């Protein structure tokens, strides 16, 4: 599954690229016989923002640092929560409406750790990982977004 071009290990599947794995693939990666719970989060392009029609999001990243920050994040999450495996992938380039821009998945023996870990990961990703989103509206107007948190 994970190729040598990807930042991965037996425990983590980290990827920041134009082609990212599907939700099913991320879920399958984190699945393990010792785990009773998998929790996932998928960030998706919405069709509207403050009354304006969104055509697509376009993502740019400092890829090497983004993957490095994601690895740190996974290490921290693994310290904080009893999780077995983590998938953390983020798209680059264009992301049309209803397409996934980010997929996070965690597995754990018990549900609370899996659920809390995913929530932690998306919050920290939005705060720390150097990736930028340009929101493109109908009529070709666009703006660089900022995560408010």
């Amino acid at each position, binding site marked *: 599954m994970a190729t040598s071009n990807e930042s991965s290990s037996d425990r983590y599947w980290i990827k920041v690229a134009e082609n990212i794995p599907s939700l099913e693939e991320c879920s399958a990666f984190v699945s393990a016989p010792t785990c009773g719970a998998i929790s996932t989060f998928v*960030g998706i392009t919405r069709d509207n923002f403050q009354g304006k029609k969104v055509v697509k999001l376009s*993502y*740019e*990243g*400092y890829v*090497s*640092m*983004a993957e*490095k920050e994601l690895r740190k994040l996974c290490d921290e999450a693994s310290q904080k929560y009893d999780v077995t495996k983590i998938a953390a992938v*983020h798209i680059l380039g264009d992301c049309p409406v209803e397409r996934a*821009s*980010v997929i996070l998945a965690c597995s754990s023996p018990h549900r609370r750790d899996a659920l809390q870990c995913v929530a932690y990961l*998306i919050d920290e*990703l*939005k*705060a*720390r*990982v*150097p*990736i*930028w*989103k*340009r929101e493109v509206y109908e009529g070709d107007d666009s703006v*660089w*977004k*900022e*995560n408010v948190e």
Partner: protein
Amino acid sequence: MSGSVIVKVLFFASAREAAGNISSTDLELSASADTASLRKSLAEKYPKLAEMVLDEENLTLALNEEYVTSGQVLPLKNGDTVALIPPISGG
């Protein structure tokens, strides 16, 4: 080369646009250069970037893929990479 250092500067997102769509450049700086003086050098070299790069709240630096925290000033040495990090919006 004694007397100066050469650092690679990476420009992203709105910083790249303000620098005239330059993704990266090598800058020759004095041997005493640090992250604060780099901001000034960039402001001079790219006037449209000046307001952004001089505002630590609005543009963070990353030195060799590590964030430079607010108020921190780090020396630069030959071969360093500094990235200009506008407000992030991943996810």
